[in-house]
């Protein structure tokens, strides 16, 4: 068994007794002092020796004081990275940290079993669990692949009856799971489901009816199955009394809610600050809700249109004007552009504006954006064109995050945004930290310009929709542009590349992208060298997702030194052989190596998908038949 990492150092504390009252309960470590960041070899560590005579007891007092102090100090540590580091100092620090960690973050639900996680951390009040990798969003994984919340729900219910918050991302959650949550935690306050699926209104109703102290219910970009035989009016299930609701987000729910019940709910939720409606809430209905909740800070406006032609239209602008605290606007699902001026009264204070479902043109955008001087986050459709981007660049000098989505995602389209608008943004929005930009054409010059104008970039995701498309002007590969990004944006942690790229681009990334943690590659590169550059050059790489690239076994093998440091590696439709994947699995026993073949009867070597990740608990037992776990 090859072990790439030595076990963490131990101190004399290890030999102390574990019979001291409150601290000692955490003294039994069921596994080795492996932390979440490094799976060490599975070693045993059983109970510590018992105390003997009084002289030993006396000598323990200074340690007890130390541990008390430690616990108190550790309470202030919130960053999980800091906590992970603290837990590696020695066993007693590991114990103390485990006792004081109240927020549990599981980045990969299969990296550790629920039993192990709950055994180590006994006083958790908030849990975050992430399941499927991001490429699963794009139909690149079987539906029944896994990431089931059920075993976690059961374990959490048993270990943390005082649990208050659950955040899930890309997990498969059923109505039954939500019922378990609703039944198990009397003080439950916060449920956030992002990109989840498998549940419906029944599950939501279980939560709304039983969690009397609920403050936050957010269903974000999740598939709430509408074709349920027993559709339940979950909004009506909230208690009749005043609620503690601070945030209610259901903009992705694809069918109507009971508006009367919703209006009543808003009226009796004085603490409601965040309300994001789905597209079945019309403009007049929005108006009524806003009148009830002028204290809102975040508003998702629903459809922002009207299916009826009212004789007397309400003064929508006045409703917006009454919401003096509004800083974040989204929604506009079926926008009737005539209504857009209604938001003018709040533009001056807006820090976040999401128009990414609103097909507005440059003029329409300009009419509102020219007032949004404080804007920091803007999501929009490319319907605004280069002109619209210019308007943004003119006013929004404080912009930190920009996302531009395509109205028409076909590869042969003419796009309305290009390198022109892109460069304009770079000139006007110097503080940009995060950009996601879909376009049909781009030039190296514009990307280089952004790398120089926006040195604070942390996230750079450029998606040239036409695969293998070169620089629109020079016809060269886009290597130099992306090279400039990694060279000049020294803080960059997340990068997504596109267009025609040779191995050179990846050489740049390997050489300069030292802080890059997440890299997305699709239809790029020429040879194995490209992936080798990245695996050998980027010590902070955690999440590497690659599809349809000519990378093969040699490239895969070049990362053996690093895979334990990563959350996962995804390679789909590349040039891997089963043997190479097998070799990796043998070389790294704590790596779970999942492969899916192209077709049932295809040659064994036709690997459709390689998805591998480190795990403390070995291969999972809930994989569907198409998944083979190599060992």
């Amino acid at each position, binding site marked *: 068994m090859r072990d790439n990492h030595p076990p963490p150092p131990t101190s004399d504390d290890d030999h102390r007794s574990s019979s001291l009252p409150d601290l000692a309960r955490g003294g039994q470590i069921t596994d080795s002092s492996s932390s979440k960041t490094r799976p060490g070899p599975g070693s045993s560590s059983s109970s510590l020796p018992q105390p003997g005579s009084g002289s030993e007891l006396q000598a323990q007092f200074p340690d007890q004081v130390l541990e008390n102090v430690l616990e108190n100090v550790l309470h202030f540590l919130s960053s999980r990275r800091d906590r992970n580091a603290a837990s590696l100092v020695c066993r007693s620090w590991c114990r103390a940290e485990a006792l004081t960690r109240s927020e549990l973050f599981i980045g990969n639900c299969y990296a550790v079993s629920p039993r192990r996680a709950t055994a180590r951390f006994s006083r958790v009040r908030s849990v975050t669990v992430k399941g499927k990798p991001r*490429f699963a*969003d*794009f*139909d*690149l*994984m*079987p*539906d029944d692949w896994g990431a089931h919340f059920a075993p976690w729900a059961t374990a959490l219910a048993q270990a943390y009856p005082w649990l208050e918050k659950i955040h899930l991302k890309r997990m498969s959650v059923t109505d039954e799971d939500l019922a378990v949550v609703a039944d198990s935690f009397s003080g439950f306050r916060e449920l956030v489901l992002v*990109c989840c699926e498998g549940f419906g209104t029944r599950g939501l109703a279980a939560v709304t009816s039983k969690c009397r102290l609920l403050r936050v219910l957010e269903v974000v*970009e999740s*598939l709430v199955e*509408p*074709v349920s*035989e027993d*559709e339940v009016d979950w909004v009506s299930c909230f208690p009749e009394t005043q609620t503690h609701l601070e945030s209610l987000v259901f903009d*992705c729910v*694809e*069918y*109507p809610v009971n508006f009367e019940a919703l209006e009543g709910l808003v009226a009796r939720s004085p603490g409601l600050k965040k309300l994001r409606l789905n597209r*079945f809430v019309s403009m007049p209905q929005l108006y009524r809700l806003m009148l009830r909740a002028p204290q809102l800070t975040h508003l998702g406006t629903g459809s922002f*249109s009207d*299916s*009826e*032609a009212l004789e007397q239209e309400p003064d929508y602008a006045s409703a917006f004007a009454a919401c003096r605290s509004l800083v974040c606007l989204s929604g506009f*699902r*079926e*926008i*009737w*552009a*005539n209504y857009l001026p209604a938001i003018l009264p709040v533009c001056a204070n807006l820090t976040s504006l999401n128009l*990414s*479902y609103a*097909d507005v043109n440059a003029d329409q955008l300009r009419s509102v954006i020219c007032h949004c001087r404080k804007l920091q986050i803007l999501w929009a459709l490319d319907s605004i064109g280069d002109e619209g981007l210019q308007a943004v660049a003119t006013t929004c000098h404080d912009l930190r995050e920009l996302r531009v*989505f*395509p*109205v*028409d*995602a*076909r*590869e*042969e389209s003419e796009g309305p945004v290009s390198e022109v608008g892109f460069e304009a943004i770079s000139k006007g929005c110097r503080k940009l930290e995060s950009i996601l930009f*879909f376009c049909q054409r781009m030039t190296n010059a514009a990307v280089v310009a952004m790398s120089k104008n926006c040195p604070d970039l942390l996230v750079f995701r450029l*998606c040239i*929709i036409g*695969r*293998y498309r070169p620089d629109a002007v020079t016809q060269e590969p886009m290597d130099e542009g992306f090279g400039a990004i990694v060279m000049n944006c020294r803080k960059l942690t997340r990068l997504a590349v596109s267009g025609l790229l040779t191995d050179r681009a990846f050489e740049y990334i390997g050489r300069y992208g030292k802080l890059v943690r997440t890299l*997305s590659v*699709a*239809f790029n590169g020429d040879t194995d060298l490209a992936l080798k550059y990245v695996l050998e050059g980027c010590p902070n790489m955690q999440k590497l997702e690659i*599809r349809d690239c000519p990378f093969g076994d040699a490239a895969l093998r070049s990362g053996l030194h690093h895979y334990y440091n990563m959350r996962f590696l995804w390679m789909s439709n590349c040039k891997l052989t089963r043997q190479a994947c097998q070799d990796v699995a043998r070389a790294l026993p704590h790596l779970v190596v999942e492969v*899916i*073949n*192209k*077709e*049932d*009867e295809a040659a064994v070597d036709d690997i*459709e*998908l390689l998805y591998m990740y480190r795990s403390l608990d070995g291969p999972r037992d809930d994989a569907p038949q*198409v998944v083979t776990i190599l060992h």
Partner: protein
Amino acid sequence: MYQTKGSDENMVLSSEDSSSPDETECHLQLGLSLSLSPYATSSLSSRSRTSSHSHSVLTNNAPTSQVVGWPPLRAYRMNSYNSHAKSQVTEVFNSMVENSKANIAVVRKSSDNGSVDNSIIGKENRNPRTRSSLFVKVKMDGVPIGRKVDLSAHSSYETLAQSLEDMFNEPNTVLTCKVGLNGVNHGIIAGADRHSKLFDGSSNFVLTYEDKEGDWMLVGDVPWWMFISSVRRLRIMRTSEANGLDWKNRTAD
């Protein structure tokens, strides 16, 4: 229950591009300039899609290209954007159908604005994007990873079958889809084996769906609008496994 805000679009037509000599049912020929050519190139591996102009009109309303999961946009976003694109295309399609000389059983042109009240159509900037999307999962036997298809982007079995064939493009796949039209069964072969002209009229796969009651049915037995309202998911099944299905099944209204 599907939240089509406005009137439902009920258009049942039948067209076919080529037929096997073994088919005994009669075939309707739609006098449109559109044709679902089985030879229209649709290749997953090709870098750009070449298609005849007529072919592209019908399939332009299909979401994005055939490359699975590209560009990287969640189906959730595709929902909204597709509604916008397809509402424009469907209007073109509607008018073309009306101009045709086809013997169409039922055609009901719908206002894509999704509202019964036509007087508001005159309003400025009225966004026709009120149709809800209907993404259902589709799985093909032998292919490990399923896909999703937006049924509301289609108005007939033909376009659906074509879209599915593109999605699961296999060189030797032929999709058979029987369309029942008020008691008359028509054999529709949409998409074809590139090498043969529907050799023997037999195909490797049939298109089936699971309805609201959980039963698996053959696609094409009921009018399109009825199918839309009861379909839960699709499965492209090997013909050898489809024997148990009731070919003559009629779902009650």
